[in-house]
């Protein structure tokens, strides 16, 4: 199993947000995670990627056979975990090009490879830019600075394409995208998709899942996965909302 989360509990400032979550992801799979606002989806992503301030009070996260709890964020990234941020950060003064080159070389160094030759790097930038239909002038700018909402999301997919992770977590990458941009994002994902890697797609909308067809759909509620189904579950949720799931969950927990 690529990612195996067992009985995960995560607290922020002493408040428990994730309350005993289990999730297994195999290579080649796409998992969608849906659920009402504020139920812990981004918190889960932060816990997997190693963000500070997210305290793991119980449980285990196994990635490629290693328990990654306590592992610094950059090591997890170099192991192959990638997060497409729900809210990408603007970093004035750091150019996209330098940023990507540093990231790519960090990963290569981690793997014991020499730095990427300039020519090869530029070629790769060009290729991936075209893939996600990013205008070339964006890469001469500072990271996300002054990018529109859609450009920021495309930029996340561009970075994913550059870094070629084995597990990519897309946190609401579809929010705020027009239909063309949505297709671009989906194209980026489908291009990367292979037998060797996996995706966790956090979304509120069925729409993205038309383009990135999931193997599993999970509903996160109150810090736990309360329901898991196939791609049809997403359709059902779109139609019926979350109330029936909440009712089911609460009825079960009363027992």
């Amino acid at each position, binding site marked *: 199993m690529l990612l195996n989360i067992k009985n995960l509990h995560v607290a922020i400032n002493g408040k428990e947000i994730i309350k005993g979550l289990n999730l297994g992801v195999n290579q080649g799979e796409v998992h969608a995670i849906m659920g009402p606002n504020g139920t812990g989806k981004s918190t889960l992503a932060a816990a997997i*990627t*190693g*963000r*500070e301030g997210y305290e793991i009070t119980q449980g285990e996260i196994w990635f490629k056979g290693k328990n990654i709890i306590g592992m*610094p*964020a*950059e090591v997890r*990234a*170099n192991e192959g975990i*990638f*997060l497409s*941020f729900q809210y*990408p*950060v603007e*970093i*004035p*003064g*750091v150019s996209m*090009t*330098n*940023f990507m*080159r*540093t*990231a790519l*070389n*960090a*990963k290569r*160094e*981690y793997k014991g490879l020499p*730095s990427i030759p*300039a020519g090869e790097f*530029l070629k790769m930038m060009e290729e991936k830019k075209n893939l996600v239909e990013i205008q070339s002038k964006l890469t*001469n700018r*500072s*990271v996300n600075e002054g990018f529109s909402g859609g450009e920021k999301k495309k930029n996340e997919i561009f*970075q994913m394409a550059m*870094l070629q992770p084995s597990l990519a977590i897309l946190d609401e990458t579809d929010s705020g995208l027009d239909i063309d941009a949505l297709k671009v994002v989906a194209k980026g994902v489908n291009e990367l998709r292979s037998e060797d890697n996996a995706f966790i797609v956090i979304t509120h909308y069925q729409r993205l899942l038309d383009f990135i067809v999931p193997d599993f759909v999970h509903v996160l509620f109150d810090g736990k996965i309360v329901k898991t189904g196939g791609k049809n579950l997403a359709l059902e949720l779109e139609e019926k909302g979350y109330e029936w799931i909440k009712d089911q969950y609460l009825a079960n927990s009363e027992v």
Partner: protein
Amino acid sequence: MNNSPSVQEISLDEMLVNQFDAHFELVSANDIPSVTALRKLAMQQFLLTGFPTSSDEKWRHTEIEALTDESFNYFLEPYKSERDIEDMFRCEVHNFDTEIISMLNGWLLDKKSGFTTLPNGIVYGSLRYAWKHFPEIINQHYGKIADYQTNGFVSINTAMVQDGVFIYVPDGVEAEKTIQIIKMIDRRESLFVQSRNLIVLGKNSKLSLMHCDDSINHFMSLINTVTEVYVGENAHFELYKLQNLNDKSGLINSTFIRQEANSTIKTNTLTFNCGMIRNNISVDLRGENAHADVLGLYLMDKKQHIDNQVYISHNAPHCTSNEKFKGILDDEASAVFNGYIHVARNAQKTNAYQNNNNILLKPTATINTMPFLEIYADDVKCSHGATIGQLDQEAMFYLRSRGISSSNARLLLMYAFAADIINQISIEPLRKRIDDMVKKRLRGELSVCEKCVLHCGMPEKEYHFDIDLSKL
């Protein structure tokens, strides 16, 4: 002749006054009468005030006593260095061909005494000869731009200084090469060193000047430099000040610039290392449509202290000024920034901008930043701002989540912060070299160099992060 170093026990001010009284003939040997008269007035002033102390309002956050209470040696004549001087002053910035003026322990090294006259008419050389050689220029500008009453350091400099750099750019002449003043201290005794520069730009002329303060040993020194710059009508002047001295050194740097109509200046004060620094920069915009960019970057750590005082006086209509200082402070370093903007009653349509941004890497580092605006005209645009912060934690996580180590992420963010000032260096090879120095400094790899600050150990090797920061 009498060249005995002072007795160690007495205080610095007392020692200087004694030297002045005992050896006035030697001190004023190269003067013309106006310079001698000025010395006497300045000494009277110094006797009244002495050196400033931290109980003076304008020195409140800088414990200057820590330096002025020390005992120093003060020499009234130049002396031989044990080192290979030619080698010390070779500057090896690639593609950066400068006219070099070398100063050792406060004295100009004059191979051939007198002046260098460039084919285009620019004259430069030792101030101690300029007094007699160029009495007209001296009488017109010397001591007129730098008011000796400003503070005790300017008074004692005016009273006792014996050497420094004189540069004259005639009307209509644009200097092709940058002139570079390299100043070094290599004595083993604790030295008090004074120097005085006078730079005069005629109408429609252009000059860029680089002023490097370096120490090449680890001994204590206190340097007190006063620079006067006259920028004639429609003349353009750039000044790059590089400050890289050892942790025991003190540097008092007072720069006074007077600008005539349609002139522009840009000063960039880049501080990499020094125990204690006080930079006073005064700009007098006295002709219409003049513009001043006053920029600075300071990267301090350990117990270092920097105090930047910028005074911009808008004394004519339609002038603009842009002040921007940025600092990164680590460990127990401390910094002061005071930006004074004075807009005279007739200086309508003034546009003055001031900004000071600081990053404190540790909670033990401190910054005191304060604007002082005095505006007597009514049609004025004036803005100021100051920020004090840490490295952006959101940005740190973003970078790390892409596999970049936390130390490299810090470096990237610090560099990004500083780049804003570096990018305003208009001389390309110099910009590149400063860029390298900043990266080294941020990595903690910039030592007080063996030689000129610009050698950076290995001049033929450009310095890189993991990243190539050249524009791709």
